């Protein structure tokens, strides 16, 4: 009999009272199993049992870490000097700036955000190729907040069995206050989540005071409301349905991992044939799985890991903890459910072993792409300047003939001062020795001083004129030269290449 056939047969056996002496068989059903479905199905409520073990501990730590960052980051201060926000992380829409600690990104530098998204995507691909849906199982906000909501539910209503009993019983005082407390706690968490979200867009202490005094802008209340609602609905109520029906990632991830990826799997070769284990029954000739259903009971997605890889599985590893606990109790080796590769599972079913291949073309490619983008980003960030110069040659007309026969070109020069103080620049040209240079509305002369106010853009119209003899020597009607902007305070120079155009004779 194949493993699949064993599983199918085992699924049909009626739940017994005991899986092994001292270990009751859970009546948990894989509510999202693949058979017996309607076209439209009402959601079967899931009451995940609390798991205990290594992975549950890791998940608690990740939960504390990620939520801690989310809720506290807006309160972190970072001194940037006078007239600048001192919030470490701030998305300032009004001034079109993103402040991230020592980094300041302007609206026109949004490509850094694109780069960050590319880095995130590649990192996600790499991690998925290595160990499956680690993101989904541990760090995705949906998982983290759902985990938090379930913990709150557990706090007020107890573990799986008492929650199920409470749900079944008639409305009475106990049910009202326990459910009420749960939902109020969820809403408060939602409120904190929405509040933290808007703090990212405005000075947190100021906005907090505005919230308390009901003086905050309408948009702040709106987003507070939206995020309170989404946190409450998605984390508290919708839960696993978000992953199964709304999120595109489960569909994409099928292409992201392969036979060498470490995935949470039930080792059917070891577990089958499964069945309740009686006292003093020998373990020879039967599998280690005593069909206690603990893996199903702890599953927040409502599936049975023993059915193999499933779209719904977010790889949260709680079934590993549940199973290991049982294996220890019945004195069998742990890791009946474990991180394993399909290749090794296949080999093991023939009594063989396959080595875990971390380095393989897929992971090398993802790592290389990741490293490349990170290097480009780091380079671009370090080359970020405090001055932007943009030169545009006016094209209509390309050039103007003056009364003495000389040829004049005009240019629009934009100087963007990114510092928070007035800077004085000089503008000159290089590469056309015979040319006369002037700026509209400014006296000509060597000491041309251009003040650009703090954090501002100044647009100048510049004229470059070549005398008739010089204009005639231009080849192909096109002479390259450069505008040079010099910061008079520190002498730094920025030049921009452009071209002088004249009649092509």
């Amino acid at each position: 009999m194949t493993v699949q056939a064993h599983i199918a047969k085992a699924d049909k056996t009626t739940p017994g009272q005991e899986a092994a002496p001292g270990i009751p068989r859970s009546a948990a059903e894989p509510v999202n199993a693949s058979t017996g479905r309607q076209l439209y199905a009402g959601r079967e409520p899931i009451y995940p049992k609390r798991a205990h073990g290594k992975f549950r501990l890791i998940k608690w730590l990740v939960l504390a870490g990620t939520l801690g960052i989310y809720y506290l980051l807006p309160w972190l201060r970072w001194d940037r000097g006078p007239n600048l926000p001192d919030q470490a992380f701030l998305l300032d829409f009004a001034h079109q700036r993103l402040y991230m600690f020592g980094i300041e990104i302007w609206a026109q530098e949004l490509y850094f955000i694109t780069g960050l998204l590319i880095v995130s995507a590649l990192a996600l691909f790499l991690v998925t190729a290595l160990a499956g849906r680690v993101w989904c199982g541990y760090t995705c906000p949906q998982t983290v907040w759902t985990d938090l909501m379930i913990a709150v539910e557990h706090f007020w209503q107890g573990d799986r069995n008492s929650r199920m009993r409470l749900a079944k019983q008639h409305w009475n005082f106990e049910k009202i206050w326990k459910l009420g407390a749960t939902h109020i706690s969820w809403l408060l968490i939602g409120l904190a989540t929405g509040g933290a979200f808007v703090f990212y867009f405005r000075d947190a202490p100021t906005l907090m005071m505005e919230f308390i005094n009901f003086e905050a802008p309408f948009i702040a209340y709106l987003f507070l409301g939206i995020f309170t609602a989404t946190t409450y609905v998605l984390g508290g109520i919708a839960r696993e349905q978000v992953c199964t029906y709304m999120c595109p990632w489960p569909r994409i991830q099928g292409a992201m991992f392969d036979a060498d990826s470490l995935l949470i799997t039930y080792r059917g070769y070891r577990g089958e044939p499964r069945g309740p284990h009686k006292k003093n029954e020998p373990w020879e000739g039967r599998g280690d799985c005593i069909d206690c259903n603990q893996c199903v009971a702890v599953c927040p997605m409502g599936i049975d890991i023993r059915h193999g890889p499933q779209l719904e599985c977010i790889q949260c590893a709680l079934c590993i903890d549940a199973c290991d606990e049982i294996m220890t109790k019945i004195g069998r080796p742990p890791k009946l459910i474990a991180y394993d590769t399909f290749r090794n599972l296949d080999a093991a079913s023939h009594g063989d072993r396959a080595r875990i291949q971390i380095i393989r073309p897929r992971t090398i490619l993802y790592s290389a792409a990741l490293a490349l983008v990170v290097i480009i980003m780091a380079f671009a960030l370090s080359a970020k300047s405090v001055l932007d110069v943009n030169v545009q040659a006016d094209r209509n007309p390309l050039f103007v003939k003056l009364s003495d026969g000389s040829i004049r070109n005009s240019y629009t020069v934009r100087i963007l001062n990114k510092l928070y103080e007035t800077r004085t620049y000089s503008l000159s040209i290089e590469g056309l020795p015979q040319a006369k240079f002037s700026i509209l509305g400014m006296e000509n002369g060597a000491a041309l001083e251009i003040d650009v106010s703090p954090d501002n853009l100044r647009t100048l119209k510049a004229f470059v004129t070549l005398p008739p003899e010089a204009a005639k020597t231009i080849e192909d009607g096109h002479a390259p030269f450069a505008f040079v902007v010099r910061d008079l305070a520190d002498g730094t120079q920025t030049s921009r290449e452009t071209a002088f155009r004249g009649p092509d004779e």
Partner: protein
Amino acid sequence: MAANNEIDNVSGIETTGHEWDGIKELNHPLPKWWLYVFYISIIWSIGYWVAYPAWPMVSGYTKGVLGYSQRATVQQNIEEARAAQSEFNSAIDQSSLEDIQSKPELLQFAVAGGRAAFGDNCAACHGRGAQGSKGFPNLNDDDWLWGGSLDAIHQTLLYGIRANNDETRISDMPRFGIDQMLTDEQISEVAEYVLSIAGLDHDAAVAGRGQTIFAENCAVCHGEDGKGNTDLGSPDLTDAIWLYGSDKEAIVTRIKTGGGGVMPAWSGRLNENIIKKLTLYIHSLGGGQ
């Protein structure tokens, strides 16, 4: 659905019973609430039809009880934009051209408005970039028939040249050929002389004969040295800018047929605010004096 309990033996998942050329659909049920959301959106759309413009009718369309209209919104946005500009516009109305020019922010606003008005009113003759063409002056250069100061440009804009306006400025190049004031030979000689004072290729002997003809017929307007006069609108014949061309044939034609182009008067057609903006824009093109 109970009748379609067939299990697909590859995936182990039930089929819906739908089959196309042997391909069967697996049943991955949608959540019921998803179906309800679909029904709610249908109901929502009915409310939408009542509230907003929705259905085309034989003539017109259903307006909706909220009275929403994109056209009205645009109209409102335009009015808001006008109101936002009113501070600048009243400053332009109340200031002299020189005052506006001395205030960079106000000048920038005026030039931007002038550029837009130029595209609407002037570009047809002078070209989109004010580069002109034969018979239509280039406004970028430093050669001005009637003066390139702010006031001169303003006056030209207001009253035009040879326009249908009492204040317009007129100067007519006589029709020396058509009216038989000069013979063809004399015209050829004086044209040669004009080439000589402009520094272009010429026959010195012929040009010498044309000098007297020039002094007798042309110098009264163009000046003895041929440098023209912006008060009379007579062009400088010694510079490199030629409204009708600098070859001999073009010069001969001008002397024979005379006349001049018409710049319309804009005083009755555009308001003073726009004319001021146009003046400042043209002055900013690089040739302003």
